[in-house]
């Protein structure tokens, strides 16, 4: 069953057409990759799915609901979460608060209950803390709960960003270049980790990545973008052997 279906999505920034005739069918439990050269429009696809930009044309549906026109928080509450190409943590807040904030839409108390410190508010707060600490423990960040996010080393910040995304309770997770700045050994670990969270949280994952080691290693299907157009789509083997892709993208990579 298709979880996410994008049809004929088009988006332009002023005169620049960043995405054209974009189609995507993502099945439940799938792990799919998007690759393409710089400026191909990969991040724009994420921004369109999550509602940061509103598609100029076309439709993006999650199960039955149309996402185009929804605000980002509504889309996130419908269980789509993401990370960012450039880490975008709440830098001056504690590690714990970063994860707690992401549970906003799952918080079940009214402003009045919060203001008056009523029973349900206290129970919910306790539940949020426990869930957050469980998540932090999974990501080996529990001992840093009180630390300010900006003080974390790069690798921990990356992990915290994934933990924060998972705190929203997603079924679809969008990862924008999760392996950026990692060495091959770290990428191996990351691959295991992505597989593991997919199992653990029953996720469907769509990821953007330049690192071929990771893309070819874990993605079941790959979509190649160039200048906003879809160049090819298929299994890692098919992509590796596609002459068009080799020329437009992989060739350049191999040389460089």
């Amino acid at each position, binding site marked *: 069953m298709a979880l996410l279906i994008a049809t004929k999505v088009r988006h332009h920034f002023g005169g620049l057409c960043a995405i054209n005739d974009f189609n995507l069918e993502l099945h439940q439990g799938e792990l799919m990759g998007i690759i393409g050269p710089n400026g191909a429009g990969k991040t724009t696809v994420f921004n369109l799915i999550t509602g940061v930009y509103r598609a100029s044309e076309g439709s993006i549906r999650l199960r039955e609901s149309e996402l185009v026109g929804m605000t980002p*928080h509504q889309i996130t509450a419908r269980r789509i979460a993401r990370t960012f190409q450039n880490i975008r943590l709440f830098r001056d807040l504690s590690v714990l608060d970063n994860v707690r904030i992401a549970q906003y839409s799952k918080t079940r108390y009214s402003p009045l209950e919060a203001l008056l410190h009523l029973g349900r508010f206290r129970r919910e707060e306790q539940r*949020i803390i426990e869930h957050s600490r469980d998540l932090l423990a999974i990501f080996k960040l529990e001992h840093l709960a009180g630390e300010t996010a900006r003080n974390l080393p790069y690798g921990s910040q990356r992990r915290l960003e994934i933990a924060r995304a998972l705190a929203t309770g997603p079924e679809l997770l969008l990862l924008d270049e999760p392996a950026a700045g990692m060495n091959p050994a770290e990428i191996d670990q990351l691959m295991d980790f992505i597989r593991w969270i997919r199992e653990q949280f029953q996720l469907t994952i769509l990821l953007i990545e330049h690192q071929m080691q990771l893309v070819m290693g874990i993605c079941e299907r790959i979509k190649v973008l160039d200048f906003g157009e879809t160049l090819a789509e298929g299994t890692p083997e098919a992509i590796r052997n596609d002459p068009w892709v080799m020329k437009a993208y992989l060739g350049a990579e191999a040389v460089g």
Partner: protein
Amino acid sequence: MRATLGVFWDRLMEQRWLLPLLVAVGLALAFAIPQFRLVNNYVQLVMILAGINIILATSLNLVNGYMGEFSLAHAGFMAVGAYTSVLLTLHVFPVAAYPGLFHLSVLAGGLVSALLGLLVAIPSFKVRGDYLAIITLAFLMIVKSALENIDVIGGPRGISGIPRLTTLPLVFCWTVALVWLLRNFVYSSFGRGVLAIREDEIASELMSVDTKRVKVLAFMLSAFCAGIAGALFAHLLQFISPRVFDIVKTTEILIMVYLGGIASIGGSIIGATLYTILLEVLRPSTVAGLLSWLPAVVFDPLNEHFIRHLGVLRMIIMPLLLVLVMLYWPRGIMGMRDFRGFIPLRDRLAHRAATPRGPTRNGTADSH
């Protein structure tokens, strides 16, 4: 010795009963002081003003500190609360017969002000930073000129003959209640949403925070508190006019907030108290009294050229103080930190883990 004292202090600060005990003692004092004339009327007046200023500073801090906007509207909300409550006290409620109705008019002042808070929240969906600051300034000026142009409520002359119904115990209760509400809000998912907006609004939305709702709540709560403070202020001064609630008043509250430190309830309490005292100390008569020991050769010219003009000079000194604090002391006395007692125990425990004390929002100040 110091170490044992330190441990003792830490233990003391951990006690759950400490804050309720302090509040209870404060309440008893607030009732006892006017009853038994423990201090003279002047000191009592300063204490009442400090309470009102604490309400103003903590509530403005929600928008300017926690949310990171720069609102100049606070005196406007005060005016709305003041005028609403005064009109109710004078013309609607038979307060003379039933003094208890005064509380209703104060509450109404807060509620009407909260509604206007909604009006300021709406532009904040679209614009931030400098532009929002200008919009809040426009709001302040609109409120002022609206009041000046409505003749039934006195126009620029304002309203006099307001009964003095604001008392020390009443202000104490309101201060404690409103600070408690603000603190509960700050340490809820809505308050964390406010902090997230300051950090990165788009990321907040993407982490499921309904930023519009959070902004509305923050602006309305902040305006509610300012309205209450305005109502209490009006029934203390016994006279209000549009001029009482102009940009100078807003500037005063801004100084309290930034002096005390942004995103800190304890900081705003300290800032407001310090400022209230500073303002009294800078009165010409006080300064003259303090410096009267100087020989006449020094004192007389000083008095002639400086001390006597302090009333006017304050208008220069205070904004200058604001600029200096914002430029050279952006953290203020305790920016981004708070007294341990104000942080809910569950939050403190949840953050403890490995780093019990760090300069985070949940770091704590060891001073009282």
